[in-house]
């Protein structure tokens, strides 16, 4: 069962973190079925948050030259080119870099699909990065979001290992940037929320693929959208991160995907890495007691 300070299970993160009477939890619902891959979200985020350049290199992964979320990329649009029929799990239907020539003659190739999705920090209900941060730099805001305090972070990097999605990272460059060495990620535009405004990416998104609002309301909206798509015959549509029973307690930023999460580079069954901590400590304690008991017993026997 989930109690206070639980590491897993459904909870409301802000009250659980100690806020009395916080506002409704805020988050993103990203409907990737209407994403047109314009990258306005990437640019708006960088403009508002003064995030410096990332890679400046063509990667060849379709139109994605940002690669992934990291300290210099807080919104990342993935582009996946694939045939419409999902290949069976056995034959590794993973997206490849570039397209390999196939033997199928042109007329028989299955219909082509180009999936696009804007990825972002999930603002997990149970956020491992938050759990392991030794300095208290990472904190839970009154909006239920997870935010890094740049001036407190000591760059230890524990959070980087802890995140099940590989989102948070320490900034590596460009040289001379004041935040080099510091952990950086999406803040859900905390500074805009405190002024009653919408996060930059959601504000910029032209097709309302990124929707900002109360998580509860967004989840209801997502269910409706999912139902509408299923009715239209888009059977591959599914929600990701909306379930409070999942391994991270559900996420503040959740998605409507048109294929398996792995296709988008997302873990299929993320679990907060600190989930087993109580059990681990308990076992460690039992092991310690057992060791002490064994040591004591060996001394007693001697006499």
């Amino acid at each position, binding site marked *: 069962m989930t109690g206070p300070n639980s590491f897993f299970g459904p909870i409301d993160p802000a009250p659980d973190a100690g806020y009395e009477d916080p506002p409704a939890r805020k988050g993103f619902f990203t409907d990737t079925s209407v994403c*047109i891959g314009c990258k306005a979200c990437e640019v708006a985020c960088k403009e508002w948050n003064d995030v410096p350049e990332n890679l400046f290199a063509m990667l060849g992964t379709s139109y994605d030259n940002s690669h992934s979320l990291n300290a210099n990329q807080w919104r990342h649009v993935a582009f996946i080119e694939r045939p419409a029929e999902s290949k069976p799990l056995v034959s590794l239907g993973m997206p490849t870099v570039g397209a390999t020539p196939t033997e199928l003659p042109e*007329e028989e190739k299955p219909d082509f699909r180009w999936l*696009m999705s804007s990825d972002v920090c999930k603002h997990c209900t149970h956020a491992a990065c938050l759990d392991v941060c030794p300095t208290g730099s990472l904190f839970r805001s009154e909006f239920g979001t997870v935010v890094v305090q740049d001036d407190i972070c000591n760059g230890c990097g524990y959070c980087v290992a802890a995140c099940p999605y590989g989102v948070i990272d320490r900034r590596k460059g460009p040289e001379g940037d004041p935040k080099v060495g510091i952990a950086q990620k999406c803040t859900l535009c905390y500074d805009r929320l405190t002024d009653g405004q919408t996060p930059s990416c959601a504000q910029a998104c032209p097709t309302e693929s990124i929707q900002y609002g109360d998580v509860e309301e967004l989840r209801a909206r997502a269910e409706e959208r999912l139902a509408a798509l299923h009715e239209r015959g888009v059977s591959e549509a599914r929600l990701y991160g909306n379930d409070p029973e999942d391994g991270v307690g559900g996420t503040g930023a959740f998605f409507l995907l048109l294929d398996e999460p792995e296709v988008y580079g997302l873990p299929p069954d993320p679990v907060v890495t600190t989930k087993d901590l109580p059990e681990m400590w308990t076992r460690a304690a039992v092991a310690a007691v057992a060791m002490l008991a064994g040591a004591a017993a060996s001394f007693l026997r001697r006499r």
Partner: protein
Amino acid sequence: MAEAHPVGFQWVVEAQKRGARVIHIDPRFTRTSAVADKHVPIRVGSDIAFLGGIVNYILSNELDFREYVVNYTNAAVLVSDKFEDTDDLDGLFSGFDPEKRTYDPTSWQYDVEDESGDLHKSQANGSEEHAEHRETAAGLQNEAHGMQTASHPRRDETLQHPRCVYQVLKRHFARYTPEMVEQVCGVSQEDFLDVCRAWTENSGRERTTALVYSVGWTQHSVGVQYIRTGAILQLLLGNMGRPGGGIMALRGHASIQGSTDIPTLFNLLPGYLPMPDANKHHSFTDWVDSVRNPGSKGFWSKADAYAVNLLKAYWGDAATADNDYCFDYMPKITGDHGTYRSVLDMIDGKVKGYFLLGQNPAVGSAHGRAQRLGMANLDWLVVRDLFEIESANFWKDSPEIETGEIVTEECATEVFLFPAASYAEKEGTFTQTQRMLQWREKAVEPPEDCRSELWFFYHLGRMMRERLAESTDERDRPLLDLAWDYPVHGEYDEPSADAVLMEINGYDVATRRPLSSFTEMKNDGSTLGGCWIYTGVYADGVNQANRRKSRHEQSFVAPEWGWAWPMNRRILYNRASADPEGRPWSERKAYVWWDDDAQQWTGADVPDFEKTKPPSYRSPEGADGVEALEGIDPFIMQGDGKGALYVPQGLVDGPMPTHYEPVESPFRNPLYAQQANPTRKEYRRDDNPMNPAPPEDHIDVFPFVFTTSRLTEHHTAGGMSRYLEHLAELQPEMFVEVSPALAAERGLEHMGWCHVVTARSAIEGRVLVTERLRPLKVEGRTVHQVWMPYHWGSGGMVTGDSTNDLFGITLDPNVLIQETKVGTCDVRAGRRPSGAALREYVEGYARRAGVTDHVYPPIVTVPDGDTASDDPRAPEASDDRHPPEEDE
């Protein structure tokens, strides 16, 4: 649309959410295709065949919206019995003059009731006139003016007469069968018929379908006829002038609609008045009468008023009835002053100076090398831009510096680079693709020396007038007599954009009361106005373009957001949304209708019709102009008030669209012996070679088809994106998209280098192998299409070769737009040669392709004296190499 208009595309997504079906027809699978319900890959350059196939489908199956077609289009009108179609003449129409390569449209005209058989006065009298039209891109005028034709031609309301437009159209498109579409376009019959069914089933009384296109349609040697085919389709299905229907032309820049309304085109004046021509218009009356077309219907009959008001706006008090409102001061054109003509004249040393304002032809115009060589031969060049674009520093950094064709120390062009204010640093209106004007406030002062265009030209004019103030030379009077007294404000004396908008709107000279409508314009000099179609933007002294009422607080038409010309009519020709009796075609699609009690037109939008003219109105004998427009003439700008399925006069290349191959193509035209547009504009010179096309030899030297378009991340010639970190890092390198099959054929490695070659140049880029490009089966063989973005140049944070260096200059004859959406090329693995070796390499290709100095293949490929050949692939008769032709 999602690539180039992501913000506008939100409305397509919204429509989709409400149940609309989105079909995307494009050579390549783009970000639009990714969210569309269906993508139809098509061979670039074959759209007329595709659309023609749909026209044939509609006419063969009688799926046209009959009541709409009979009443609102010229379907019932009879065509002259002298007319011969492309079927009869193997791809030509009757009246072709092979010398001038234009048509005498006499045989195309309507069969008129006037027994004298006199041609309507305004109609082009011969092929020479059409040749002039080609020079001056007169098609642009006709686009806005509509056809100026006789107002009462003979008709057959049953649409059965063999010479009625409906039947002529049917015969013309009879060849465009689903099999033909599959052969020519590479579109499967299944896909094609799916589109036909979807389009026709969603049109009619209860439903309408919208056609959306952008420059992938216009930048062809038959670009105007592409649009025409779309118009024919939408007219046959009754979609024009109706909500959710129509044709949306997506324009390429935020205010480019404004740049044709208040024009930056050589042959137009504000409001689409044509520039006077020094050879034809020796007096004000000559000029105005050429626009007015006495005898035809419509609002161009008031052209004298529009012209007087414009001249008075220019010359203020100096313009009076006595001096014909300073008509003699107006600059006049003498022929082709288009951008390509001008650049070639620069190469020839005939043009000495150039102003480039937010334009980067070194990267953005066809035939980059010609652009740069032209600029290198100028005396002076003024560039106003946000960054040091390639067109400003070609003299020290360009492909020609690399090849040694331009030597910095020897280049005599004096370049003046002025920093420009960006859009947020100046105020004024933008006019976007829906003819809507939106006022923009200045958000922040421009930094340091950056200034707006308004500031630049106002002060340039002011300083020039000060210099010439003491002059007694008659030649200086036009400049000195200009009305140039705009109020200025601020630290730098910024002219008031508000005052300019007021002047454009127009006002009563004595009282300065702003005009509310162009109908208030007088032809006696008592009113002035810079642009008659914009009159009303300052109605009642209120800046209507600045209105920002939320759409949630008004009807779905949202008339109180911004202001659309003319008269805030949001859908043009919306009289067509009601039936001949004035009732909506259906409740669901009710838009504008006749209120019999109030005796006026009413509805959701401003009626695009005289408010109190009833549907039952028929014009009296001998009436013309506005009076001749009847209650069932929704197309009020056309000479006969009807939508044109067939255009008897006004288009250089024919009254109906015809499939011609692109000028550079690996395929012989399977429909006719005439290969490509016979009337196209060409500049035949050694520095503008074209790749060979059938029936010429050596087409295997450039065996692939290539096309270009935009990426969302960059903006056109890259001047506004390559210099910005956040945008540059999104797409940091120039690349070439190829299909896996082509990559295998040419040994191209994903993310390796390749180069693309044409007779003009070779450029390199990274290889992006993708299944989004499919080889198509056309005429029994596989054709590979290659795609490149054209955003790169030598400047900025991310640099690369310019795709437009690959194209030569060949233009649509009606509007002089360049064919930059299709060409042939070769693709090879590895980087291109650099330095002088590049020119040798390209010249080697040209030689192998049979491209020789001073020798040009014939443009007319119909066998001489054999006008009805059964086999369009019949070999050419004897010597087909014409002597060199200077195309003037």
